[in-house]
């Protein structure tokens, strides 16, 4: 097995969703941003990542992850 270093090249996944009913987007149109942190952490556990830093604005939430 070749000596391995840390793999820099990323895998990137982009998923788009829609709601049949505008209600699904929540009162402020937050949609997926309404997912609670436990749900996000459950997803990241599957990926084998954890959140080390986070920031948000009116439009979206951004998390820096550590493998």
């Amino acid at each position, binding site marked *: 097995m070749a000596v391995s270093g840390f793999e820099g090249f990323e*895998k990137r996944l982009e998923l788009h969703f829609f709601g049949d009913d505008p209600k699904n987007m929540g009162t402020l149109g937050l949609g997926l941003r309404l997912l609670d942190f436990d749900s996000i952490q459950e997803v990241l556990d599957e990926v084998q990542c954890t959140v080390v830093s986070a920031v948000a604005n009116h439009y979206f939430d951004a998390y*820096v992850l550590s493998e």
Partner: protein
Amino acid sequence: SSLFVYPTKIIIKTCGTTQLLKSIPPLLRHASLDLGLTLSSCRYTRGNFIFPRAQPFPYTNFQNEVVYLEESLPAALCYRKASVMPSKTPSHAWHVFSASTQNTTCRFGDSDDDDLYTLEICMTELDRDLARNFFRRPGDDKNGDSAGKEMTELTGISQINPRALICDFAFDPCGYSMNGIDGDRHSTIHVTPEDGYSYASFECVGSVYDDREEVVRMLKKVVQVFRPATMSVSTTCASHEAWTRVAGALEPLGFKCRSCAADEFPAAGTVVYQTFVDRR
């Protein structure tokens, strides 16, 4: 690695040997059960791994990844396409899988977004002196956040998009990740600075209506921060206009375009994959 959560879109971009595709089942479940939201399209992209044999299944080869994706996605996403976009160098290829409920190349079925494009840049063989900026200083009594902030300023990354609010982190003993937020547009940088397999990525969202000079200025700054020997640039856009800006920006910086491949994908639009080498 990074995660972006928009109201109707989620982007996860992870390095190392992470099991990214295992995120799909819990994401679909929570979106549906918690929020009543349904998946309309999916796009998976990656370059060539430097250490492919270190990857776990299914990332051992793209066919396995495609089978895994096909089995994870609902049948409603019936328009699907997988392609490995070539370049002139065997070590560089761009792997794309896209699936949608609509057989359209306008971005994610939303023609309002047709002017937007996503730029995914992968840089290898970073300039050694510049890569050294992404090592923690022993005994710097900083944490990941404060060391990350220091790297962001020291390297000039804060100047790539001066408007962006930056969330950054420096790993120990080396490595760096940042997310930028500028209105409804994200950007992100991940750096693996170790000599022999140094790598940096830059991703951002732009619009074909943006000032042309803005793209040139931004790419020039990215090149100044990392000075890579090789760069690959993937542009995903409904219109055919975005990718020409990239070549126009990089060639005056001393980079020669070695290859250019284009292909159409459901919901993603046109993906143009270009590779560049430093002429020096």
